[in-house]
C-alpha cells in the first residue's frame, strides 16, 4: 500500500520583491515523518514554514500539504496545521486561559482541551495571569498548548525548545516530540539535537537547497559547510 505523502514540494519558489527567499525546492515527506530544516540566518527556513502554514503564497512551483494543493485548497488544511514559530501568537493583555479559549473558539474546539494541555505543560497554576507577566519559557509553554489545541496532523516548529529549561523541555516532549506521532517540520540551529529526531534533513543557504538526505546518509562535513 502506498504511503500518503504529507508534504509534496515541487520546484517551490518564493521571493520578497527582488530578493529570492526560497528557490526551486523539491521535497517529499511521508505522513508521520520529521523533516529537519537547517541553515544560517536568512536561508529561507521561516519562509518555508509560512508557505507550509498557508500564510504565504508560492510564487512558482507546486505545493501540496496533507494531500491538498496550496494556495487553491488552503481552506481544506487550515485547522489541520499547528504552527509554533518565533512569535507565540498570544495576546499580552490576556491570560493564558483566555488566549487558549480564544484560539479554541477559532478552531471549534471544546475548552476542556485547553485545560488538559495547560496541565500537561505545568501551566495550570499560572493560567490566569496576563501573558505579559510570564517568563519567556512560560510563554513558550502556553504557545505549545496553542499550537496543539486543535490536535493538528502537521506540526511546523521553529526552534520549539527555545527558552525552555530542561524540565519544561521534558514536559513538552510527548506533545511535540517524535512520540507524538505527528508529521513534523522542525527548524533549528542545533544540528546535533535535530538529527536525532529527523527522517530527512534539508539544508538551505540563501534560499537554495544545499543538502537533502536522511540523517544516516549525511556527510558530517556537509553540515558544517552550511554555516560557513
Amino acid at each position, binding site marked *: 500500500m502506498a504511503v500518503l505523502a504529507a508534504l509534496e514540494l515541487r520546484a517551490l519558489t518564493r521571493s520578497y520583491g527582488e530578493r529570492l527567499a526560497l528557490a526551486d525546492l523539491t521535497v517529499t515527506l511521508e505522513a508521520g515523518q520529521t523533516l529537519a530544516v537547517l541553515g544560517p540566518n536568512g536561508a529561507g527556513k521561516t519562509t518555508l514554514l509560512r508557505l507550509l502554514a498557508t*500564510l504565504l503564497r508560492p510564487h512558482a512551483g507546486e505545493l501540496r500539504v496533507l494531500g491538498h494543493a496550496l494556495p487553491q485548497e488552503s481552506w481544506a488544511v*487550515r*485547522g489541520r496545521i499547528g504552527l509554533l514559530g518565533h512569535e507565540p*501568537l498570544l*495576546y499580552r493583555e490576556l491570560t493564558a486561559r483566555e488566549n487558549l479559549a480564544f484560539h479554541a*473558539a*477559532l478552531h*471549534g474546539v471544546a475548552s476542556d482541551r485547553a485545560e488538559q494541555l495547560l496541565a500537561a505543560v505545568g501551566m495550570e497554576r499560572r493560567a490566569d495571569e496576563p501573558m505579559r507577566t510570564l517568563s519567556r519559557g512560560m510563554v513558550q509553554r502556553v504557545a505549545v498548548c496553542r499550537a496543539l489545541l486543535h490536535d493538528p496532523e502537521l506540526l511546523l516548529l521553529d526552534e520549539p525548545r527555545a527558552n525552555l529549561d530542561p524540565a519544561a523541555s521534558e514536559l513538552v516532549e510527548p506533545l511535540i516530540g517524535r512520540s507524538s506521532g505527528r508529521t513534523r517540520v522542525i527548524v533549528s540551529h542545533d544540528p546535533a539535537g535535530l538529527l536525532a529526531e529527523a527522517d530527512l534533513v534539508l539544508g538551505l543557504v540563501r534560499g537554495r537547497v544545499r543538502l537533502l538526505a536522511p540523517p544516516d546518509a549525511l556527510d558530517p562535513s556537509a553540515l558544517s559547510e552550511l554555516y560557513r
Partner: protein
Amino acid sequence: MSAPPTRTVLAALLRKDLRVELRSFESVPAMALFSVTTFVLFHFGLRQDSLSGDLASGVLWVTLLFASVLGINRLFVADAEQGGFDGFLLSPADRSALLLAKALALLAYLVVLELVAVPAFALLLLKPSIGPALPGLLVVLALADIGVAVIGTLVGALAVRTRARDLLGPLLSLPMLVPVVLGAARATEPLFATHAGALPLRWLAILALYDLVFALIAFALFDFLLED
C-alpha cells in the same frame, strides 16, 4: 476539521478585542481626550462659547472624525504586533467574522467616545440646549458611526499590513470618510439651529446608502486584504 460557527468566532473575536482594550486603554481614552481637548481649544480659540447651526455641527463632526481616526489606526495593531492575524489565518474560521467583529469593536469605541464628547461639546460650545436635538442626533450618530466603523475596519486592515501604517491609515480613511462627515454635518445642522428644525431625511438616506455600499465593498474585499 469543519469550520466553527461564525457566531461563535464573532463572539470570541469581539470579546478578545474588548478585553484587550479594557486592559490596555490604548484607543478609547485617547479618542475621548482628543475630542474634549479639541472642544476646549475651540472654546478659547474661537472666543465663543455659544455655537449654533452649521458651525456647531461642523465643529462636532470634524472633531469626531479626527478622534475616530485615532481608533482606526489602533484597531488592528495588537493583532499585527502580537501575531493575532496569523493565529486567525491559521484557523478554519470564516474570514468575514473578523470584519464584523472589528467593525463592532470600533462601533463600541465610537459609542463610548460620543458618550464623553457630545456632553462635553454641549457644555463647552453649543448654544441651544442639547435636549430637543438629542433624538435626531442619536439617529445621525448611529448612521455615521456605522459608516465610520465599516470604512475604518477596511482601511485599518489595509494599513496595518504596511510599514507606513500610521501615515496610510489617516491618508486613506479621511477622504473616504468625507461623505460621512458631510452627510452627518448637514443632517445635524437644523438640529443645532437656534430654532431647531426637522431632521433632513435626504441626508439620512445618503448616509444610509453610503453605509450600505461600503458594507458590501468591505465584505467583498476583506478576504483579499487578509491574504498574503
